[in-house]
């Protein structure tokens, strides 16, 4: 009898320890995404389809455009525009995007919401880089600011700064102070300054992705590496179009990405853009090139847009594999950014007086 009871007791202890551990693991992994991901899926249902964008393109006037957006998520942002211009609509749409980022920060589990904080910082990098470039070229910096990011107040102050030294005071205490100081001392060029900001930013994103576990790590690494590949490939193609040397391009590349060193070296050393595209044909990015090859030869931004669409599709695929993961919010924010970019383009084209058919064609080409 004692053998039976010992066996039964031991079995019970083993089973319960294993069950408790596995249950805890499953609950920790999925429960925090339950609320945010269902909410985000419901928000995804309200994203515009091609038909709605076509209707917006037919607005003819900015007034009609804004009225057509009245039954959408953008209504609260477009309700009190100071004046009906593409620029003010731009700002309202950016405010909506900023709020979407804030919502993500609020509803996502703490262990991953910091990633969205980093994505928001990417807008700081864009803004600071644009403002500094504008200031150095003597242009109106205000026009280049996106109303997004964690340092929007400082960015606006930078745009209003009277001297380049004043910008240094504004950037004091931030991670951008050091590269800007070196720019002022002429230790680095304007292009190097921009590259340095992006290098810093992407190293932070990568570091964060590497610090995660299991599928969270897989998704974040895939996303960040694809973003790095996009920037590096666009840099290489633009440089090839301007016949820059391999050494000059190499220093502008962001460390990381999915492309191996051998492929990058080959791309850096090919003769021209056509050969670079031929090299990409044997990589996983060949599908991106298939539809835009002709366009890329005249406009490299077509490749950039196609790559962005590819990242969106990849994240959407991961959302299907991992419905309760960070892939869902990433996929949503990419779609939202894409939609806002197209809405801005439609507003600008309407303001420029283009016919609806032409606007539809331009927007359609951006797909």
């Amino acid at each position, binding site marked *: *009898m004692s053998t*039976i*009871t010992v066996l*039964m*007791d031991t079995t*019970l202890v083993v*089973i319960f320890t294993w*069950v408790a551990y596995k*249950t805890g693991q*499953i*609950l920790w992994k*999925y*429960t925090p995404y*339950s*609320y*945010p*991901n*269902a*909410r*985000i*899926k*419901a*928000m*995804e*249902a*309200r994203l515009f389809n091609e038909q709605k964008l076509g209707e917006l393109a037919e607005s003819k006037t900015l007034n009609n455009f804004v009225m057509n957006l009245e039954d959408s998520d953008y209504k609260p942002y477009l309700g009190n525009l100071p004046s009906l211009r593409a620029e003010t609509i731009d700002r309202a749409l950016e405010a909506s995007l900023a709020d979407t980022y804030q919502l993500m920060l609020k*509803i996502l589990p703490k262990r991953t919401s910091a990633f969205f904080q980093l994505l928001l910082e990417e807008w700081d990098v864009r803004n600071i880089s644009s403002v500094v470039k504008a200031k150095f070229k003597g242009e109106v910096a205000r026009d280049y600011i996106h109303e997004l990011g964690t340092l929007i107040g400082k960015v606006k102050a930078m745009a209003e700064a009277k001297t380049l030294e004043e910008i240094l005071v504004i950037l004091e205490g931030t991670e951008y102070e050091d590269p800007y100081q070196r720019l002022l001392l002429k230790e680095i060029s304007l292009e190097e300054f921009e590259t340095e900001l992006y290098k810093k930013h992407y190293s932070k994103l990568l570091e964060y992705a590497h610090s995660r576990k299991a599928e969270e790590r897989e998704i974040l690494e895939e996303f960040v590496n694809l973003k790095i590949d996009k920037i590096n490939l666009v840099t290489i193609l633009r440089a090839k179009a301007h016949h820059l040397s391999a050494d000059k391009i190499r220093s502008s590349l962001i460390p990381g990405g999915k492309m191996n060193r051998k492929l990058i070296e080959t791309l850096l050393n090919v003769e021209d853009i056509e050969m670079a595209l031929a090299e990409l044909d044997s990589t996983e990015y060949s599908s991106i090139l298939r539809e835009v090859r002709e366009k890329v030869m005249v406009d490299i931004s077509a490749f950039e847009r196609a790559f962005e669409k590819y990242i969106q599709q990849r994240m959407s695929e991961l959302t299907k594999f991992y*419905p*309760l993961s960070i892939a*869902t919010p990433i996929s949503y924010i990419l779609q939202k950014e894409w939609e806002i970019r197209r809405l801005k383009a439609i507003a600008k084209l309407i303001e420029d007086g283009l016919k609806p058919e032409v606007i539809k064609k331009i927007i359609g080409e951006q797909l």
Partner: protein
Amino acid sequence: MEPIVYVALGAALAAGIAGAASSFGVGIAGAAAAGAVAEDEKNFRNALVLQGLPMTQSIYGLITLFLIALVSGILGGSFRFAETTTDNLIKAAILLGAGLTVGLTGLSAIPQGIIASAGIGATAKNPKTFTQSIIFAAMAETMAIFGLVGALILIITGVGF
């Protein structure tokens, strides 16, 4: 240990584990339902149906608890396996096994809640996927049904009324 301990454990674990798993499952799906409804009230009906699916495991647990209590005589006032004999100990162990089977297979309520949660998200995006979402979530139910059937066989053939 005395036979009563195994019998009581079997009944308690059947209802306890399955009930706890159901509450986790309903909780996970409920959080998703709240998220979907926060964006659009129209999602309420679909979300409610999906959220309720992981509750069934707790019912299986409760049925098993009653059966164990009934066959062992706890329900009725005269416990049948009071003496610590080998035969009584084996029968008590069978009842514990039956309870554990339902309790452990009842853990399927947790993945069912996760599937229901993903289904609520999918339905919120595209209401046409409601039926499919129910079928996917119901698949997890199969394990709990197998557990209940296994427990019934154990109780009826191993112990009997």
